């Protein structure tokens, strides 16, 4: 049978199943194959906080969406073209996102009476005609896998578990993906269980062969490689890029990295990643709690290390007092907040941008800290380097605001040239700096940066004491003098404000320079906003786009940019935190657009919002 091959420019696939079905792994492998093939790709995992919710239930559904194309793309896609549903719960949980006419591949083996009842289906939707508006491919994935593995020396359970590889094989056939890397991956993953490795590879190949022979699939699809900027690429998630950025910061600053951290979703993978790279001289310390994590990092910074702590919102709340101590002792420290849905425990695996005001103001006293937010998963690398640059140069804690979407999402990353990375080397103070040539004044500042000297224990003659009590300007001795306090409050603020001179101006993308509406964003909304802007422009709309990476201090030209447009639209995954700040600071009437659903914006949704603002001109 000859099968038809259709050309597509882009596809969005969503793999969905029970949290024990291996959907994240399946998605990761399809992503790797797709990246290797040369498409541009963007991914969005979506999983419950429960490690194994009861099998077959709606809360237990885990999914992985990926968007790949023959051109550069900015988001994991709004709505899938293809849904792979491993059971009735996965179908029910995802059907609402699936446009009419889209394909679905359904594992009919799991559509048993009991599994249907668990999610409230009276009859199987595959049979009762309720899915007539979609193109349903009913495939008994489990039994086909078990049959393909007859004769293997493995248990029935292990055979059934390989069904995700069968599905991956089928999808790999359907979209002409290269398969060698997955075979190699499975050999490596199950190196200690060669029987399981062989079975999974066999299931993967059986899935491919099934696609080629069965009549359920008459068409396969080709998506040509994208023409990306020349260079060497790898696929990378935000958490991994952030960890690599911290390692790069350690190498470039020649300071040993000390990570003090307490496990918390969705930040733990940074701790895991850094723990693997001890040969870079990295010390990772899994502390007894969030407070000890940041405390140990600060103690290490006092000793001359690049101190880092990684956490999510609830952890930032606990670390606040120590961050304040770092502000007043003026020691370098990087605080990574991988934001998640709050308040309190909230929705640990879901994304949000709701910690901005906490990062800026969530401490007692006047306690300014620089805040940086990466825009995309791969940008987490550069953002970590930038956070380190500011922390070390200005002797200050820096907040790095990633989020769950960036942390777990992935995209191809064009690897930087090592020679192009910034030089972050720092000189420790080794000589007295007092006018008498003998005294060391720990709070005598560099007149240009207002940073104080950094003299580490072990340096003879510079023995000094620092602490949380207000210090006299210069000497650092305890001081309750009212005017000194006022001066120190202003000096600490002035130091952070002055960083505005040392960061890039806010760039505006306004191709024809005639837009009257500016859409502004910060952090992980970059992709959806940029994709929405493209849609609006393609439809003839005029819109300018700008994206803030430095939230404190803001780029020096921010006010000027905001005032040069008739209308400024600011989508945020919070209730308008940046909008509040910008309105207060620049007296510009920002139009806020807010959704707090634990999910990233959709490009289509934002395109509509932008168009409405343009139309209301």
């Amino acid at each position, binding site marked *: 049978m000859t099968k038809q091959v259709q050309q597509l420019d882009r596809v969005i696939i969503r793999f969905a199943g029970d949290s024990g079905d291996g959907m994240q792994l399946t998605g990761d492998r399809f992503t790797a194959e797709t990246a290797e093939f040369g498409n541009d790709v963007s991914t969005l995992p979506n999983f419950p906080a429960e490690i194994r919710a009861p099998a077959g239930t709606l809360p237990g559904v885990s999914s992985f969406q990926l968007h790949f194309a023959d051109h550069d793309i900015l988001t994991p896609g709004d709505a899938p073209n293809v849904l792979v549903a491993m059971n009735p719960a996965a179908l029910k949980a995802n059907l609402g996102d699936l446009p009419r006419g889209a394909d679905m591949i359904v594992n009919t083996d799991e559509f048993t009476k009991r599994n249907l009842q668990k999610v409230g289906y009276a009859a199987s939707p595959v049979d009762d005609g309720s899915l007539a508006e979609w193109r349903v491919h009913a495939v008994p994935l489990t039994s086909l896998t078990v049959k393909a593995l007859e004769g293997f020396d493995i248990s029935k359970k292990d055979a059934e578990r390989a069904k995700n590889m069968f599905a991956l094989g089928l999808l790999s056939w359907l979209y002409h993906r290269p398969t060698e890397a997955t075979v190699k991956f499975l050999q490596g993953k199950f190196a200690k269980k060669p029987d399981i490795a062989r079975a999974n590879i066999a299931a993967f190949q059986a899935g491919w062969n099934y696609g080629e022979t069965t009549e359920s699939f008459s068409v396969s699809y080709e998506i040509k490689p994208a023409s990306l900027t020349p260079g060497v690429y790898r*696929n990378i998630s935000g958490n991994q890029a952030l960890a690599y950025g911290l*390692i790069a910061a350690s190498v470039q600053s020649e300071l*040993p990295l000390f990570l003090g951290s307490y496990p918390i979703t969705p930040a733990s993978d940074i701790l895991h990643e850094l723990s693997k790279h001890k*040969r870079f001289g990295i010390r990772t310390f899994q502390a*007894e709690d969030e407070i*000890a994590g940041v405390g140990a990092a600060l103690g290490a910074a006092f000793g001359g290390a690049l101190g880092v702590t990684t956490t999510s919102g609830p952890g930032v709340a606990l670390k606040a007092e120590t961050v304040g101590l770092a502000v007043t002792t003026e020691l370098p420290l990087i605080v990574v907040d991988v934001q998640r849905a709050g308040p309190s425990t909230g929705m640990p695996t879901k994304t949000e941008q709701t910690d901005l005001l906490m990062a800026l103001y969530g401490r007692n006293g006047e306690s300014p800290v620089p805040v940086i937010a990466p825009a995309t998963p791969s940008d987490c690398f550069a953002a970590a380097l930038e956070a380190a640059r500011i922390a070390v140069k200005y002797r200050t804690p820096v907040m790095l605001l990633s989020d769950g979407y960036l942390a777990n999402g992935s995209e191809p990353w064009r690897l930087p040239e090592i020679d192009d990375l910034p030089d972050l080397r720092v000189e420790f103070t080794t000589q007295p700096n007092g006018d008498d040539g003998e005294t060391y004044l720990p709070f005598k500042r560099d007149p240009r940066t207002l940073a104080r000297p950094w003299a580490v224990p072990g340096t003879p003659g510079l023995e000094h004491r620092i602490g949380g009590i207000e210090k006299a300007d210069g000497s650092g001795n305890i001081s309750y003098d009212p005017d000194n306090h006022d001066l120190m409050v202003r000096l600490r603020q002035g130091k952070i404000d002055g960083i505005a001179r040392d960061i890039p101006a806010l760039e505006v993308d306004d191709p024809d320079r005639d837009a009257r509406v500016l859409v502004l964003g910060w952090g992980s909304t970059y992709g959806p906003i940029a994709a929405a802007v493209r849609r609006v422009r393609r439809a003839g709309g005029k819109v300018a786009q700008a994206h803030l990476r430095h939230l404190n201090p803001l780029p020096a030209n921010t006010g000027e940019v905001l005032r040069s447009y008739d209308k400024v639209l600011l989508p945020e995954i919070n209730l308008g935190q940046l909008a509040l700040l910008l309105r207060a600071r620049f007296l510009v009437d920002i139009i806020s657009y807010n959704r707090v659903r634990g999910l990233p914006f959709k490009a289509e949704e934002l395109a509509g919002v932008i168009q409405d603002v343009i139309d209301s001109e």
Partner: protein
Amino acid sequence: MSDIATNGLRYVTPNGGTGLTLVPRTDEKQTLKDFKSDQEVRWCPGCGDYAILAAVQGFLPELGLRRENIVFVSGIGCSSRFPYYLNTYGFHSIHGRAPAIATGLAASRPDLSVWVITGDGDALSIGGNHLIHALRRNVNLNILLFNNRIYGLTKGQYSPTSEVGKITKSTPMGSLDRPFNPISLALGAEASFVARTLDSDRKHLQSVLREAAAHRGASLVEIYQNCNIFNDGAFDQMKDPALRDDITLRLEHGLPIVSASKAVRRAANGGIEVVDRASVAEDEILVHDAHNPDPSVAFALSRLDEPAFEHVPLGIFRSVDRPAYDTLMAEQLKEAEGTRGPGVLGDLLHGGDTWRVG
């Protein structure tokens, strides 16, 4: 991993610790004056902290360490002002967190002699978690816990070591909370060095500090310290010439545990008991073994002052050799570097599945 990580507990001879071998030494003669900072000491007149400060300043010169390699880290409370008065590196941090901050410093800088100054409220209430974890990890710290059984800096509320029924500003009808025994707590956390001493007994205090400094790993030294403003006389029995020799059970490794009139022996119920010294034969008296890997006898000794200071053991309850946290951490780094060579950034970034475009 080397044997130090795997052989666990083992006996060491007294003073056989290696606590200071990684800290650079100086041949210059040091005196008490070298360790005094230029800051005016601001505790209440008559406070026990003065005696401890003088004892510490007087004892540091004999360590022969380079002054710049000594760091004092403190939390919050009266005692936590201590670092300002010593001409070493110092970090006056926040309430309860000194062990956490010192852990980061000591874990990354084995060349430093790191001292934590804390009080009963700082170490056992707000910072209790950090204390027990620093002890179980055996971070190379000397933790001096000034126990005055009261909150001083906040003006006289009861503390986690105050006796039940304590009448204070916050407990006008008496406190309800059973106090912690810091020695029992430290032993429960399997601290490798646990000792108790008294602010007014400079000789004993300095001898304990000497052993603590020589111990590589976490040393917890409880120092009974009088707060003459809010809890005056808390340890008077131990200072009263008529009582102290009968109350104080001296713990010295290899010697029988006795006071002037009392002796400790094994009890019929499997525990230990205090009896009249005259009523027991010499060979029945328990001989102190500070290096016993099993902490249960040390724990039993720590219970002898319950309920109310009838018999108070003073000295080193436990001193066993266990790998320090910084050593283990450094060994992992060395091991990682040894197997795969030092990290190269370019190799790391190019380490995954990569592909070339154009």
